[in-house]
């Protein structure tokens, strides 16, 4: 009785404890068995996917539990995997769990079961496991066809260096099946009577098109195979950049790389490091590994849309892998967008005045993910749009007003615009100004009738980020009247007894013409009869005219005219009197710079001097040239590209009086470079006696020679054995014959008497001029015979 009472009391106490305990923590019955276990197979991912529920929980309850999962292969007793999966469970909430298989699922049947245990801190330990669920079978072999031999996994994509398990399933139970990787036999493990597996360790990249793995029944039977796609983990660039070597330790790969690079695709740096300048475009089997996007940058044109750009590098698409995708994340707003293009993306700026942006660009392909981030203030990334409607208005001869517009940015923002003016491709003016919408600026100090280019670009005033693109506009300034009088000269001559003046003028330079010269006006005013006025209009580009005058004096005005008006006038006074030609003559020396011409002033009131010459030889029509000089000059250097050696140039120096009349002051003649005479005079022999004869060459022109004739050499060959006559001296000719020579030193002395000769003797003579450079060419001698003394 007492014992029963003790038991009863104990029982009641225990029950009370238990109930107390339950009322403090949980009221659910334990354990909780997993239910509705379903298994599915994903061949592409080679995964088993489990889902189950726990029904026994109270409706509102959440409980932490652990599920022990067992996976068996081929048969339930062959357990290959055990894992404890911890999670929080709610009533009827479906739980998920996945498991990836090394061995392709098609090569074996797999079995899964699980049991559970409460693993919650609110429940005192130790818990206890539920019963095992039934084995659920995942059989991927049901979907196989009727072929006798299958190889798996089909068309798998892996990274180089990873391990891959290949297997075959044979419906023909034969032992003579062999497998090959790239034609080389591989050996594996037989897992059961129809399945064998091959573990490939550290697979290498071979080609972008994949690596063939096949199995065949020996003796020409069934065939099955797969293609394994191996992606690089490092690009060629990355590998080469980190490659070093020490003598004797270069790897085979490095050697091959070195040979390839030394073929011209790379450059060796110092100290054994090699750097690749550019990606190898010609290597046919080299897909780029996905690298971090380069040059990631964002900017806005209007504070409403951001445009982000980056360098995506090469397309990493393989036969089994599409090209990489790009996603843009912004951390402050938490938003993201999938970019449609591989190198740029637009982002709508938030309306809530968010200024700071933290963008992360994620590049992702099947195997890997790369990202890059930037943080910036929106207002510091403004790249304005190109200005537009750039036009010149009110264009004059020396100024023009440029106008343009800009696209607005935000509300009331100011842009800093830079206006540049270019002439002949060079910037000659630059102006900066701040504008909001419309820009306008007056360009001045321009040249008339000149083509200019104006161009404008703008930047955000608040914070400079980038200039906008340039907009340009070409324009021409208007013409203005010519600013200089034409340079005019005259040449006086008598034609049929009438004084004739030839007027010449030089075209105005572009700087002075200020436009296209259309015509020249010549006004001839008779100073002796002022009422007589002659006006001539000579169309450009004529540069001369001829006037027939009389003995009167004339004042000649010459003006150049363009579309705007006339130039200042060039005024010359001429008279019918040709003037004194007898003036001092001199010589000038030529140098490589030209002729240095000097003169002595005559009157004290000269307003200037003119040096005149003909540009070509005297035997050609004169191309008259002249040079105007100021009143205080007494020398100048005359240069011309037309000057030639061996040509005599005659310079005439004129003094221009206050009355604008030209008086011949001096004449000068010179050679840029003297040459030897090119021909000899025609010599006539006369007055032949038994002791003498006379030579003459009066028609010889000394002025048309290629140098100043200084005199003549008279050569005489006397009778054999006879001495040279007096006034001659012995000389040796170039052909080594002995001869007699007499030299005269007066170019105008064109006769010579050869005397003191012997009668009845044969003499030969030859006359040649000489200059400072040398004598004329050696010609044939002329033979004469002196007569008998008594004839």
């Amino acid at each position, binding site marked *: 009785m007492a014992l029963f009472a003790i038991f009863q009391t104990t029982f009641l106490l225990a029950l009370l404890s238990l109930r107390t305990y339950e009322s403090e923590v949980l009221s659910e019955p334990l354990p909780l068995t997993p239910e509705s276990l379903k298994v599915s197979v994903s061949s592409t991912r080679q995964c088993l996917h489990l889902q189950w529920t726990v029904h026994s929980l109270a409706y509102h309850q959440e409980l932490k539990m652990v599920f022990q999962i067992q996976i068996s292969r081929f048969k339930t007793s062959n357990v290959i995997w055990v894992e404890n999966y911890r999670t929080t469970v709610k009533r009827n909430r479906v739980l998920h769990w996945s498991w990836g298989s090394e061995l392709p699922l098609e090569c074996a049947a797999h079995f899964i079961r699980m049991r559970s245990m409460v693993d919650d801190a609110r429940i005192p330990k130790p818990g206890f496991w539920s019963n095992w669920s039934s084995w659920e079978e995942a059989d991927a072999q049901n979907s196989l066809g009727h072929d006798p031999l299958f*190889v798996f996994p*089909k*068309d798998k994509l892996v990274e180089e260096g990873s391990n891959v398990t290949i297997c075959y399933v044979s419906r023909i139970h034969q032992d003579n099946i062999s497998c*090959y990787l*790239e*034609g080389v036999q591989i050996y594996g493990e037989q897992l059961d009577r129809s399945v064998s597996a091959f573990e490939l360790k550290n697979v290498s990249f*071979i*080609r972008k*098109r*994949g*690596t*063939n*793995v*096949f199995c065949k029944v020996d003796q*020409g*039977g*069934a*065939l*099955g*195979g*797969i*293609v394994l796609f191996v992606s690089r983990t490092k690009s060629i660039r990355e590998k080469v950049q980190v490659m070093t070597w020490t003598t004797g330790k270069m790897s085979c790969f490095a050697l091959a790389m070195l040979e390839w690079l030394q073929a011209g695709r790379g450059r060796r740096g110092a100290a054994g490091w090699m750097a690749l300048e550019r990606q190898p475009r010609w290597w*046919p089997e080299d897909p780029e590994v996905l690298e971090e996007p380069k040059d990631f940058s964002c900017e806005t044109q209007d504070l409403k849309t951001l445009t982000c750009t980056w360098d995506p590098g090469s397309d990493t698409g393989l*036969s*089994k892998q599409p090209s990489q995708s790009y996603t843009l994340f912004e951390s402050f707003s938490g938003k993201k967008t999938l970019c449609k293009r591989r190198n740029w993306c637009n982002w709508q700026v938030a309306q809530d005045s968010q200024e700071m942006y933290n963008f992360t660009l994620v590049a992702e392909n099947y195997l890997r993910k790369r990202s890059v981030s930037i943080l910036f203030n929106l207002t510091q990334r403004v790249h304005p749009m190109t200005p537009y409607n750039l036009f010149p208005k009110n264009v004059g001869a020396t100024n023009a007003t440029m106008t343009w517009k800009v696209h607005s940015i935000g509300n009331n923002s100011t842009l800093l615009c830079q206006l540049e003016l270019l002439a002949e491709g060079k910037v000659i003016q630059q102006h900066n100004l701040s504008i909001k919408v419309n820009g306008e600026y007056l360009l001045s100090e321009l040249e008339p009738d000149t083509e200019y280019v104006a161009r404008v670009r703008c930047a955000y005033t608040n914070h400079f980020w980038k200039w906008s693109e340039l907009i340009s506009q070409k324009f021409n300034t208007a013409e203005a009247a010519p600013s200089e009088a034409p340079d005019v000269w005259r040449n006086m001559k008598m034609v049929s007894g009438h004084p004739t003046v030839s007027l010449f003028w030089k075209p105005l330079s572009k700087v002075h013409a200020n436009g296209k010269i259309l015509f020249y006006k010549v006004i001839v005013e008779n100073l002796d009869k002022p009422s007589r006025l002659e006006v001539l209009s000579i169309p450009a580009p004529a540069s001369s005219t001829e006037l027939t005058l009389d003995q009167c004096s004339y004042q000649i005005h010459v003006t150049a005219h363009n579309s705007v008006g006339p130039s200042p006038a060039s005024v010359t006074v001429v008279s019918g009197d040709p003037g004194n030609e007898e003036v001092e003559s001199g010589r000038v020396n030529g140098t490589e710079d030209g002729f240095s011409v000097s003169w002595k002033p005559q009157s004290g009131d000269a307003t200037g001097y003119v040096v005149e010459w003909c540009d070509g030889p005297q035997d050609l029509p004169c191309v008259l040239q002249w040079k105007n000089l100021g009143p205080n000059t007494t020398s100048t250097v005359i240069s011309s590209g037309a000057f030639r050696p061996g040509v005599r140039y005659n310079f005439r120096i004129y003094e221009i009086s206050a009355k604008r009349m030209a008086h011949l002051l001096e004449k000068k003649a010179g050679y840029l470079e003297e040459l030897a005479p090119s021909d000899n005079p025609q010599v006539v022999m006369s007055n032949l006696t038994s002791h003498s004869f006379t030579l003459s060459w009066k028609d010889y022109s000394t002025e048309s020679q290629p140098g100043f004739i200084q005199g003549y050499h008279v050569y005489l060959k006397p009778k054999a054995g006879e001495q040279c006559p007096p006034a001659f001296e012995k000389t040796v000719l170039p052909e080594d014959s002995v001869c007699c020579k007499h030299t005269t030193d007066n170019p105008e002395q064109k006769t010579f008497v050869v005397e003191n000769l012997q009668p009845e003797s044969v003499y030969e003579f030859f006359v040649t001029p000489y200059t400072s450079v040398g004598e004329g060419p050696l010609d044939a001698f002329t033979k004469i015979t002196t007569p008998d003394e008594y004839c």
Partner: protein
Amino acid sequence: MSRREGSLEDPQADSSISPLPHLESKIQQTHSLARLLTKYAEQLLQEYVQHQGDPFGLPGFSPPRLPVADLSAPAPGHAGLPVPERLRLDEAALAALPPLLDVVRRRQAELNPRALRLLRRLEDAARQARALGAAVEAVLAALGAETRGPQAEPAAAAIAAATATAGVFPAKVLGLRVCGLYREWVSRTEADLGQLAPGGPA
């Protein structure tokens, strides 16, 4: 007495043009075409194996010579058949090949998009097979022999669908088989026409 001017002629001869020279010319041309395509088919096969990777093209690699869409290689007894029958079989094979070559080309365009010459050869092969088939049919008609008549739709679509899901390796093997069948049948056609061509066995 009348005089006949011009060349001497047999007054008993039929004045219409003899069909024989025309048929001979047609046979000759078709034979030449077949010979040319045999060379191209060999080049196609070489080009094909180059782009598939080892072991394709290696001497010891020979997949089973299974029919493709009911098209097999010429039977061993083909050469023993009468020429018209042989040509009928040739024509049927040449008609079946273009859709299969198209399937191979489409698959290769995915696997080897940069192999432009291979893709072009496959496209040309389909067109040339049609042309040769039509020429053989014309020869058969000229011979007065029956042609094959309307045929059932080829099973190329089914092949294409199966190839798309079967994996890359089976697609490569199929392409090898189709290129091989193409070569065998144009070569067979050349030999069969050679029997009819002038100078060949009667």
